[in-house]
């Protein structure tokens, strides 16, 4: 039994749990304790342990990159399912399985203890969601990625719309599905393009498409009539369409804030480890491909930086706790995109990891608050929960400080590295990245602002409602995940403490080394070389200490500004500067820059025209043709049926006429007459 024999079990365990919950839940519901949570917890524990056991193996230089199942051989390429285990996917497996496990445990408190109905559907959905995401992470080729990417989207539709009898959840689910699907169209075209142009969709190995693309560019020949680098840019942008949709980047971010209509544990899973993470993970997975095209990288960086700032500003005025978190997610994924676009591969992965931890923490914390508040998520009804919910409060504080990027929490180290890398390459000859850096730095201020506002309104001051005065008590199944994630939010930054390393004069960039143990074409070092030689990214080696101090100062000043605005024990939005001097801005922010409005307008305008046209075309021409054809066929068969009269004399006559006709025709043709 080899070390990698159990890889398949990582996704298959949750899949088994899904099947068990689905069928046992339908046929023998009483046989499943906790409405199916237990099989899910067991399965995810198994996946988590196996994922953990892969880490030392991978660190000692073992990789797995094999096709498991060949499902079609095509003249251009083989289509197969396979696994790729390298430092990136191994790390992501640990993160995903850990957070999914904690979400399952949290759900015991959030769903079971609240006597929700339809829990089999819930846990079956969660299990399938975990299966899809884990399979997506270990995919060894783009087509398999796409398949599970879609399955992740489908599962999120199921779970966001869990309370389908209410009004808003089904709409939010459909919106999430449609908006991400819009991006996925481009992704699908990108997959086909990769297969057609490069003949393989493999991520790793000497015959992977990033490697082929690289040698095509180096060889200087044209590919299908175009310069290879142009192809890389076109395909990169097509795939980016799927990424922007799933990772909720501008302008396809509008689905994510609505998606909080789903149960809060689902939001935690979507925001931290599955749906949204899938997009940026894909960019990291094929980073060797993106690194070849400076245009695509710049677009990624700018979209990311702009999204980081835009979403952060919208988070400053929201009333709902979960909405603030939703916009912060969009903003934080903007940072990850900024890092990846700016050549900071390690920084991007780092922030992806730490964000997964503290955002899961914040959402589960929000879930705890919402339970305590008897299912009221409006922060203006909260206040003063600090004394009532001490564990939740401290964990939430840890998560918030990580989010705001305050020393020494995890988010500080990772966000700082994102900004540092952007600044480095921006100063090193790619000035366009400096725009992204500016966006990112301003967003740090805004993040500090809304983070403090969120904590202050929720936990500090005096209670502003009956529910806040007498909160619901919380059980261990809520607190345990919070404590685990809270400690990780404090400690996870230790995996890559670059500024501290510079101060102490030692190398603390463990994550960097970890990602460098990958197979030759997947290392951070290799990606660095690629961005350097193909995209002209050169590092200016700016001091990480100065950068860290700068961003810390900005974050703290953002918090201080919020403190100044909301410091009173009974803060009101109307009493602040918003209603007086910045009324217009406030309104724009409340309406999310009218993003939804203009997208709806475009959609309804084009949709109505297009739908009318399609309807007419379908009814008149397609259906008309089919109807005409079938009615003609049926009337023809009616007449053919009548040839068979039933009288044997007629048969003999027709038979003889037929024979004579044949004889006559062939006699003429053969010239026998």
């Amino acid at each position, binding site marked *: 039994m080899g070390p990698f024999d159990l890889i398949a079990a990582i996704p298959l365990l949750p899949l088994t749990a899904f099947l068990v919950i689905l069928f046992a839940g339908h046929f023998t519901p009483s046989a499943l304790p906790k409405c199916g949570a237990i099989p899910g917890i067991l399965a995810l524990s198994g996946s988590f342990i196996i994922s953990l056991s892969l880490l030392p193996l991978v660190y000692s230089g073992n990789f797995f990159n094999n096709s498991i199942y060949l499902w079609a051989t095509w003249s251009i390429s083989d289509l197969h399912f396979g696994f790729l285990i390298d430092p990136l996917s191994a790390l992501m497996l640990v993160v995903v399985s850990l957070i999914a496990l904690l979400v399952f445990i949290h759900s015991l408190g959030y769903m079971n203890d609240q006597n929700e109905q339809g829990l089999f559907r819930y846990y079956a959905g969660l299990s399938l969601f975990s299966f899809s995401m884990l399979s997506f992470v270990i995919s060894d080729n783009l087509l398999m990625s796409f398949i599970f990417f879609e399955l992740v989207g489908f599962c999120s539709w199921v779970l966001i719309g869990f309370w389908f009898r209410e009004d808003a959840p089904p709409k939010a689910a459909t919106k999430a599905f449609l908006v991400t699907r819009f991006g996925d169209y481009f992704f699908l075209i990108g997959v086909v393009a990769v297969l057609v142009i490069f003949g393989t969709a493999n991520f790793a190995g000497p015959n992977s498409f990033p490697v082929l693309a690289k040698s095509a560019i180096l060889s200087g020949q044209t590919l299908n009539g175009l310069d290879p680098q142009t192809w890389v840019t076109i395909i990169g942008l097509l795939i980016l369409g799927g990424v922007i949709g799933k990772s909720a980047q501008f302008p396809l971010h509008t689905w994510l804030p609505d998606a909080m209509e789903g149960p809060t544990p689902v939001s935690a899973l979507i925001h931290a480890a599955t749906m949204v993470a899938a997009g940026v993970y894909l960019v990291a997975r094929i980073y060797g491909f993106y690194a070849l095209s400076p245009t695509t990288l710049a677009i990624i960086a700018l979209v990311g930086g702009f999204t980081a700032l835009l979403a952060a500003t919208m988070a400053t005025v929201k009333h709902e706790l979960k909405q603030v978190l939703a916009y912060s997610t969009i903003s934080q994924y903007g940072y990850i995109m900024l890092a990846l676009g700016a050549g900071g591969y390690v920084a991007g992965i780092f922030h992806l990891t730490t964000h997964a931890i503290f955002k899961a923490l914040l959402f589960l914390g929000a879930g705890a608050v919402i339970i305590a508040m008897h299912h009221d998520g409006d922060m203006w009804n909260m206040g003063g929960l600090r004394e009532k919910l001490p564990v939740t409060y401290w964990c939430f504080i840890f998560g918030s400080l990580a989010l705001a990027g305050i020393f020494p929490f995890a988010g500080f180290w990772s966000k700082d590295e994102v900004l540092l890398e952007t600044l480095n390459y921006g100063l090193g000859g790619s000035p366009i990245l400096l725009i992204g850096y500016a966006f990112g730095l301003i967003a740090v201020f805004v993040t500090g602002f809304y983070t403090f506002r969120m904590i202050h309104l929720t936990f500090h001051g005096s209670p502003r409602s009956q529910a806040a005065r007498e909160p619901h008590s919380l059980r261990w199944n809520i607190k345990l995940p919070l404590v685990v994630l809270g400690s990780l939010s404090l400690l996870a930054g230790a995996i890559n403490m670059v500024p501290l390393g510079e101060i102490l004069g030692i190398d603390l960039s463990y994550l960097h080394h970890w990602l460098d143990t990958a197979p030759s074409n997947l290392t951070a070092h290799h990606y660095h070389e690629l961005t350097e030689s193909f995209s002209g990214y050169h590092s200016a080696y700016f001091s990480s200490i100065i950068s860290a101090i700068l961003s810390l100062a900005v974050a703290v000043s953002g918090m201080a500004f919020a403190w100044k605005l909301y410091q009173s024990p009974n803060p009101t939005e109307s009493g602040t500067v918003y209603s007086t001097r910045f009324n217009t801005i406030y309104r724009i922010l409340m309406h999310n820059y009218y993003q939804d409005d203009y997208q709806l307008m475009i959609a309804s305008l084009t949709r109505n025209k297009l739908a009318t046209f399609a309807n007419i075309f379908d009814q008149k021409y397609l259906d008309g043709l089919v109807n005409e054809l079938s009615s003609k066929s*049926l009337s023809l068969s009616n007449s053919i049926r009548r040839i*068979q009269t039933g009288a044997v004399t007629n048969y003999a006559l*027709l*038979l003889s006429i037929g024979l004579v006709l044949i004889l006559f025709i062939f006699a003429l043709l*053969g010239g*026998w007459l």
Partner: protein
Amino acid sequence: MSDLVLLLPQLCILSAALLVLIYNTIFRKSTKLTILTLIAVVGSFCSIASAIFLFISQSPTVTIFGDQLVVDGSSLFFSVIISSVTLLVSIASYNYIKPLQNQAEYYSLLLLAAAGMGLMASANSLVIAFVAMELASLPSYALVTYLKNNEGSTESGLKYFLIGALSSAIFVYGSSLIYGATGSLGFTAISESILNTPSLSGLLGIGILMVIGGLAFKTTSVPFHFWAPDAYEGAISPVSAFISSASKAAGFILAFRILIEAFPLDVVSSIGLDWALAIQILAVLTMTLGNFAAALQENVKRMLAYSSIGHAGYVLIGLAALSGSQDTLVIGASMMHLMIYGFMNTGAFLFIALAEHWNVGPTFKDYRGLGSKAPLVSIAMTVFLFSLAGLPTGGGFLTKYVLFMAAVGAGFWWLAAIGAINSALSLYFYTRLVKSLWVDPPISDLNISSKGIPVGIYVAILIAAVVTILSLPFFSPFADFAMAAANILIS
């Protein structure tokens, strides 16, 4: 002696037929249906086994009895088809004819017809071909009229006999013209004679076309098909299954052999006859008429009868595409299709037999809701129907695919296109029955369980279903067998 060994597939069937008669003569009063069935089953099973054994051990082509008979891969291949259908029908008949009279006569007629069909597969001269055809036909007429007190049965038997007599006359007359023109009756002798001394081309051409006409009767090709819908509908369903599957296969091997060996296209072109053109016309007419007429039938058995005519049209594509460059492939594809068709079509007719056994009415409406009452056989029937339509529930999908691709490869894309259009249409009427079985609301007064499960029919249907389904994933043995047979025939 060794010559007789080569005829084992036919001799097994023949001895089973004689054994049935002897047994019945000795135990006149106490004839047991079980023993009759057993004799028939063992006989046809031995026939299949010996045919496969001979195919594996035998050198390519042997002619025996002064070149009158030939034993080669293709004759053995068709022996397997014919005996398999006989085996399935024998098993199923056990339940079906239990309440009926003249059981020994039934089995002996069935086996004698099968022996005749086996002989058709080995015929190597026009005389033997004619004798074998009559040996197959005469018992068939009697089988169709087996319910001799039933008006429908006797009427359809009479029609079958009259049209058969007319067709036989045409075949014999054609043979005599050929003999007059060439002075030979053996297939190879005829082709040599045409090659060496091409004379009397008009006489010869008309003779060939009339022989084709006689064969068209056996293969139910338009316009010699008229008997088929009436005979299939009037006969008891096991007999319909037998005639529509085995008899058709026998007709086709004879057509293949006569046209390829006695009248090769390159040889008969010297007399200005392109029989491939005639077959192309027949193929198009047969496919189209069969499927279009099937589309609007209300009677399920009649629908299957026309569908079987449509399938004859598909198989004719193989002959029609012979003037192309892919002779072995097109004939091999036709053979594959006949083999799989033998199982799926027999299975479908036996399902009708089962329904008749349960007193289910004859129309589509009467089959409503049968799926919930007898799910296992209904699933089998669904497999047969979809496989007949060319969907991948069984080997029918692959054989049609190979057949159409071979036709395209041979340059007859239009034949393949017409075949594909007809296949699409056929989905309509096959699906209608599937819909009746599964989707439509059940008929309340139908009570199956009171009549018990007829084991024989069940077993036969399930064997046919298993072979049909397995021929999809394990297609290569069927394909290799057919290609080897076709290869021998062509070279």
